[in-house]
Structures are given as structure tokens and as C-alpha cells.
């Protein structure tokens, strides 16, 4: 792809914590309009990477830029959906979705009618005036997505947003997300440790390897769109899945070597 298609540039980013290096010298691009999924075993720095892209955390060295501007804090042009439910419990569904709009000074009336359209889009019009605790986990995450999108971000960062949902709901949510992406002009960085999810959603899959978090590979997913559930049984899907699984497994095995563990502990 050409340079003009790049939305986010991650350059030589390292994030060290007191006792560990979560991300080490990671560089990649996120293309405008794509859905990039990030996979890797637990603790390999996926959340840390997403938080740095959101501006909620900053790199120890290296930099991340969006549209050529270096990120130095959170901003509504980078929405984030967390694994934990983070709707504001004191606001109704529609008021949650209005949040970004009213914070930016938009009038109540127009903000509300705009928010209602988002609520309609996620299929929760009947719940517009309910409070978050009256909603199921899947519904809450749908509202969280709408709330982020209402801010008109350039990119939507999603950190295992469906991680707490049961398998069936999770599948429905994946469909919802893909449908939304068809209708809205948005770039998505989606973090998961579920390989099926990663492949099903992705244009590209970024594989991280742990200790320290480094890029193992970036894999193109050239499966046809729109994606449907049967795809998971196709030869291409299974092949890709096996490839990614062995990549992650390989990276994990490296980590599990006793010698490695010893040096880690003494470090």
C-alpha cells in the first residue's frame, strides 16, 4: 500500500515498567480504513500497546503518530473500548452515547438526535432510556462502541472488548462490529487472544511474541468479505489459523524454556 494510506505510525516503541519490558522496539503502520487485529499470548503487551495508542500511557522511547501528529495524550480522535464495562452507570444509554458530543460543546437537542441514530444502529432503541445496570454485557459493549463512534474518532481501539462474553454472544458481537464497519468510515485496531476472532474480523493480523513484546509477524487475511460464520470451516481459514497458532505456540515455547525463566528471575 502507498504511504498516503497510513493512518497511524508506530515507530521503535518501547515501554519498560519497573520490573519488565512490556513492549520492545515495535514498529508498524495502521492503514486507513482497515481492521487490524493484534494477537499474542497473555502478558505479551497487547493492552500496553493499545493504551499507548490511546494516549493513556506513553512509550519509554519511540513514538506513535496519527496523521503525522505525535500522540501525547488521550483525545477523542482515538476512541477506546475496554474489556471491562466502562459505561457511565449514572447515565442512560442515550446519554452515554451523547457524552463525547456534549463534552465538545454540542447542543443537547442535536446531540441527542445524533446519539439516537447511533443507538438505532446498534439495535438498542428500545433500551435508549435504560441505565447500564439494566443491560446485558453484550448490550453494554455495543453501547460502548456506539459511545466511542459518536465522538467521530479516526480510529477505534478495542482491547478484548468481547473477552467477557459467552461464545454465542461473542459471535453475534463480531457480526455487529463488521456490520458497523461496513456502514461507518472507521479504522479499527482490535486486540484479542482468540485466534478465530482475530482472523474472522481482520484485514491483517499482527502477532506479538512475549517477553519482551515484539512483533512476530503481520499476516494478511485475504478471505472474502462480507464474512459469514461458515467461513470458519473453509480451508483457507483453517490453514491460516494453524499458521498463527503454531507461531504463537512457538513463541510461547521459547518463553517456557527453564533457562529463560531463570535468567528472567535473576534479571
Amino acid at each position: 500500500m502507498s504511504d498516503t494510506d497510513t493512518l497511524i505510525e508506530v515507530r521503535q516503541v518501547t515501554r519498560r515498567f519497573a520490573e519488565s519490558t512490556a513492549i520492545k522496539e515495535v514498529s508498524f503502520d495502521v492503514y486507513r480504513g482497515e481492521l487490524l487485529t493484534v494477537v499474542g499470548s497473555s502478558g505479551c503487551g497487547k493492552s500496553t500497546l493499545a493504551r499507548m495508542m490511546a494516549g493513556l500511557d506513553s512509550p519509554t522511547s519511540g513514538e506513535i503518530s496519527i496523521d503525522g501528529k505525535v500522540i501525547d495524550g488521550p483525545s477523542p480522535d482515538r476512541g477506546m473500548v475496554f474489556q471491562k464495562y466502562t459505561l457511565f452507570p449514572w447515565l442512560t444509554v442515550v446519554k452515554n452515547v451523547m457524552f463525547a458530543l456534549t463534552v465538545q460543546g454540542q447542543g443537547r437537542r442535536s446531540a441527542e438526535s445524533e446519539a439516537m441514530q447511533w443507538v438505532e444502529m446498534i439495535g438498542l432503541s428500545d433500551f435508549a432510556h435504560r441505565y447500564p445496570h439494566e443491560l446485558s454485557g453484550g448490550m453494554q459493549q455495543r453501547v460502548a462502541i456506539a459511545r466511542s463512534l459518536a465522538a467521530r474518532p479516526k480510529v477505534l481501539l478495542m482491547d478484548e472488548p468481547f473477552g467477557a462474553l459467552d461464545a454465542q454472544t461473542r459471535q453475534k458481537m463480531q457480526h455487529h462490529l463488521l456490520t458497523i464497519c461496513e456502514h461507518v468510515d472507521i479504522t479499527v485496531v482490535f486486540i484479542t487472544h482468540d485466534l478465530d476472532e482475530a482472523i474472522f474480523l481482520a484485514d491483517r493480523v499482527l502477532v506479538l511474541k512475549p517477553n519482551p513484546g515484539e512483533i512476530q509477524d503481520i499476516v494478511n487475511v485475504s478471505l472474502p468479505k462480507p464474512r459469514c460464520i461458515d467461513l470458519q470451516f473453509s480451508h483457507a481459514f483453517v490453514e491460516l489459523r494453524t499458521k498463527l497458532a503454531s507461531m504463537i505456540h512457538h513463541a510461547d515455547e521459547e518463553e517456557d524454556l527453564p533457562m529463560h525463566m531463570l535468567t528472567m528471575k535473576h534479571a
Partner: protein
Amino acid sequence: MIERLPRERLLIAGSFLLPLLIWSIISYVPFVWHPNVVITDPGDVSWFRAGMEVTREQFSAETEKTTDDGLIAPAGERVNPVYLPAPHKVATAMYTAFTTEPKRRSEKWLHESLWHSITVIFWGFTLSSLIGIPLGVLCGTYRPMSLLIEPFVEFFRYFPAPAFGALAVAILGIHDAPKIAIIFIGTFFQQVLIVANTTRLLDPMLIEAAKTLGAEGRSLLLRVVVPGVLPNLYRDSRILLGWAWTYLIVAELIGTSSGITWFITQQARYKNFDNVFAAIMLIGLIGLLTDVILAKTGRRLFRWQPAEATP
């Protein structure tokens, strides 16, 4: 709204009925305690007078003496000491205290005393909250603020509020101002620390989510922190209000004694212990009633909370 099961209602009623039952047994069943005898007929005992209260030992000793000497034995009834009046006496006292005019013109009716106490509490607590709650929220939100304010507050809160009594009178005069000041001092410093801690307990993920939605500074404080901690602040305030009542008794003794405390000390001096009990119970009732009303209001105000989160 929490629906209470019938069994739960029964237990709640029982929590009041049980102490009342114990009190009634002690008061009305003679052999449980009743250590004294009130003389109905002094007989030939020279120092006995009708209506006088003596211990059972004295009474039986005198009865023995008179029968041995062939004189008329005294008669009497077993009673509890004056400082433990029976429930019906306290109930009557509560009623008569509201209906009988004070003995001296300068003295106040019970309800006037009570009302005076309530206004003192109200002003002390309101003034403290007006400054303490915003200050606490700021301390809980902004670390530099917390570092600047909290260490001193932490130090100051160990000063017993009543110790400032004499000082308060010297500065503020003898009327209500020093009393309000004592309640203020007793509440304020605890309030700042409690509110700051409550504010710090707000889920940091909510703040992060708000930041990614464009909230910062003032909008973050007013649209996320404040509404997020409000139900917990409300609960804190209910507890703090209870503490304010404990400072009231000391506050009312400084300067010119006033309010319900004046009534209690006055009645105790006349040994009208039924009135003393009546007044103490009134304080309890007022406290309980305000708390129940505040709890109900709270549930109405914070409908967005799941029912199990409200006590």
C-alpha cells in the same frame, strides 16, 4: 427499590421490640430486680416517711425490728431505683413534656429545646459540608491538592473538638456561634478525609474512558468524578451526620447551656429521670427518622444504581 420480605420486616420490628421487652420485664416483673422499696405506710419506724424509697435490706431490717418489739410494721412496695423509670412512665413523660408549660418563664418548652438543637446541628453540618465536600473531592481528584491539604487535616482531626470550647466562646461569644463552631470542627476534618478517600475509590477505568471521549480538566471533574462519587458521598454524609449529633451534647454545654442538653441536665438535677429518658429517646428517634428519610431519598436520587448497591 428494595422489597423487604415479611420475615425481614419481622426481624426489623424485633430489633426494637426485643430491647423494649427486656426493659418491660425489668420494670414490671418484681422479682427480676426491684432492689428498693417505696414506703406506703411508715408504721412505727421513726425515720420512714410515706413515698420514701429505701433499700430492701433496710426495709426488712426495720420490719424485723418492729415485729420483735411488738410495734406496727411498715408497709411498702418493691420498685426499681428512680434512675430506671418504667416504659409507661417515660411515655407519659414524653407526652407531658410536650404539653406542660415550663416551670419558669425563662425556661423553654421541650420542643423549643429540641428545635434549637436541630438548628445548631443543621448549621454546623451544612457549613462543614459546603466547604468540606468540595475540598475533599478536589483532594481525591488532584494529587498535588491532596498532598497540600491532607497531611495537615490528618493532624488536626486528632484534636478533640470539645477542647476548642473555651476558645470558641472567647472568640464567638456565648450564644449559638461557638456551638456551631464545635460541630463544624468535629465534622469538617473527618469529612475532608473521608470524602477524599471516597473520591479516590472511583473506578479509574471510567476516568480513562472519559478521557478517550474528550473529557479533561473541568469537564472530567464535573461530568465524571462528581456524578460518579455522588451516591457514596451521600452515604458518607449520612454517617457523618450521625457523628455530628455526638458533638452536639458537648457543644450545648459550652457558653450558656442550651437545647436538648440543657433540658436533660435540668431534669436530671430535679431527678425527673423519666423526662431524661424521654429526651434521650427523642434524640434517638429524630436521628433514626432523619436517616430513614435520607436513605429513602437516596434511593430515589440514585435510581441508576443497581438495587443491591444501596443499603
